[in-house]
């Protein structure tokens, strides 16, 4: 329960941190004065305020560039700046994606979340609700590093896209569950780029980072689209955003020039008028999907409840309790560091078992909620793919669009606008 230790308890910990005194400290005859250990202060606290200011400024500038000046060149410049600052200079920590976990842990666990982390969590959400995913476009260092290496984007088939697009919800749900139970911060532990930002790390993390970056050369922003748990939230806020980037500055003339402009598959083509027979069949499919939603929720909740023990094993205390129990029963040979650590505390084993049982109970509730949530998400996805909307124009899919501004220059209306002097000319491409 290391993370649950509240600041209030720390006084008690400090008081308890006394030695054994097998050999009493001598009185010195020579007037010797024992030195005292140095306590260098943390170096980060001051710069974290700077981080929040930079974050807010970058979000404001990026939103302005995307919605007003419509300049891909400058968006790219801001993106590289954010990559340099948040990524390579600040080593990618703390980031908005990871802040999801701190917020989960802080709600109802007695973990005092730093205000800076609250700001990192909230600012991009607010900006997304106002202007779309401008955070993803130019501020998030994880998005930036993938965007910077994207050279040969491949088109991902729609069924694959739909299926992989479910993963962020699973990741988000798992991350919130493990953070809220104090088990682990999985987003940080499996962040593929933090080792790249630090230019160091263990072999597995460096290989993972390298592989994701290699994929990112051919698949636009794979982490953002198929893993990012924060993106799973941003998608829906972007859908509701009061303003959002548009492909054309004024009207769509259906020239189809933007059709292949988006490397992230976020441009939706106009749909042909449905044939009459299609419509009744579509209705039946939609009805079936709607009926499936409650079934999926119930099934997911039940499944989540069933897997409470494997889920709970992510928590170190549960693993420790299991190991101690096995060792006591004589079912395993030898000891582990964790079981040794427990025996050193000289606590009764029953106390540890009770603590583990309490945690498994929390995971039972959490697992059911997680399963229900995933059931809902999958159900709504089924509904979503069975609804047929008629579109007459090329439109941005607000959920998928990361507002990178690539498509603007594909639109002939944009060229007209620039000729009229309606905006600054993008620098990078001229």
């Amino acid at each position, binding site marked *: 329960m290391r993370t649950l230790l509240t600041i209030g308890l720390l006084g008690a910990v400090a008081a308890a941190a006394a030695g054994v005194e097998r050999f009493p400290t001598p009185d010195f005859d020579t007037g010797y004065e024992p030195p005292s250990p140095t306590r260098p202060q943390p170096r980060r606290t001051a710069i974290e305020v700077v981080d929040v200011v930079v974050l807010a400024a970058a979000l404001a500038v990026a939103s302005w560039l995307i919605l007003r000046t419509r300049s891909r060149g400058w968006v790219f410049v801001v993106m590289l700046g954010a990559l340099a600052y948040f990524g390579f200079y600040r080593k990618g920590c703390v980031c908005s994606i990871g802040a999801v976990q701190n917020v989960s842990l802080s709600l109802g666990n007695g973990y005092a979340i730093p205000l800076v982390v609250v700001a990192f969590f909230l600012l991009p959400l607010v900006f997304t609700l106002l202007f779309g995913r401008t955070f993803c476009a130019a501020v998030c260092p994880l998005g930036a590093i993938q965007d910077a290496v994207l050279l040969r984007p491949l088109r991902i088939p729609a069924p694959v896209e739909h299926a992989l697009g479910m993963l962020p919800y699973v990741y988000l749900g798992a991350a919130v569950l493990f953070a809220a139970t104090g088990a682990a911060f999985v987003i940080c532990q499996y962040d593929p780029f933090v080792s790249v930002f630090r230019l160091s790390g263990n072999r597995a993390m460096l290989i993972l980072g390298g592989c994701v970056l290699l994929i990112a050369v051919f698949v636009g922003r794979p982490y953002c689209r198929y893993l990012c748990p924060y993106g799973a939230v941003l998608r*829906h806020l972007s859908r509701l955003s009061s303003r959002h980037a548009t492909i054309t500055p004024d009207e769509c003339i259906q020239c189809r020039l933007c059709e292949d402009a988006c490397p992230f598959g976020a441009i939706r083509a106009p749909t042909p008028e449905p044939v009459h027979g299609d419509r009744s069949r579509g209705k039946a499919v939609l009805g079936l999907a709607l009926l499936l939603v409650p079934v999926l929720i119930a099934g997911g909740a039940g499944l989540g409840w069933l897997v409470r023990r494997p889920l709970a094993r992510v928590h170190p205390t549960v693993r420790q309790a299991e190991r101690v129990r096995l060792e006591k029963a004589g079912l395993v040979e030898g000891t582990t560091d964790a079981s040794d650590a427990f025996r050193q505390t000289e606590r009764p084993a029953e106390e540890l078992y009770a603590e583990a049982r309490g945690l498994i109970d929390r995971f039972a509730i959490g697992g059911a909620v997680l399963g229900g949530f995933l059931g809902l998400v999958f159900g709504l996805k089924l509904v979503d793919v069975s609804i047929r909307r008629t579109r007459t124009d090329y439109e941005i899919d607000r959920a998928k669009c990361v507002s990178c501004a690539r498509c603007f220059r594909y639109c002939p209306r944009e060229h007209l606008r620039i000729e009229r002097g309606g905006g600054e000319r993008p620098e990078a491409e001229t």
Partner: protein
Amino acid sequence: MNEADDKDALTRRQFLRHGLRGAAGLGLGGVAAGAILGAAAGDTVWQIDPTKCIQCGNCATYCVLETSAVKCVHAYDLCGYCVRCFGYFEPQADAFNEAAENQLCPTGAIGRRFIEEERYQYTIDESLCIGCGKCVKGCNAFGNGSLHLQVRHDRCVNCNQCSIAAACPSQAFVRVPADRPYLIKTKVEHE
């Protein structure tokens, strides 16, 4: 922008979107209020609770820094100033002098200095210490436990999830307020 066109002729979809946006805004406000109410004004940093540490050696290898941010600290007011320091000498040391082959520390980071008859002071050269905790193990097992490991905050980069904390078998890593970032062992209650 497309909502701005027909403010007076609100379609059903736009009405729905406005409502949902309001709800999302309220939800964000709620989460923000919840988080801010429980927020600490200051920052928190990682530290080792020396009472829980079992000197497994993970601190030396799991830190994201090339040389760990964890180093040994000596609480002098607990030290017995022993001639035969269990943190300094190999268990099978031939002689109790400063010769390298007698030293437990793999990097020779502990200095031994004569103070007076039967009393020696042991100091840690932090630039050499790698945080392996070998000396801490010896000192805890047979001595006063005045040597202990601490996260040195001039080195720690304060990862959101400390890699060592994730690997610590005794869950000895705790988040502490940044203005009181050390849990250094003392004889008296310190504030």
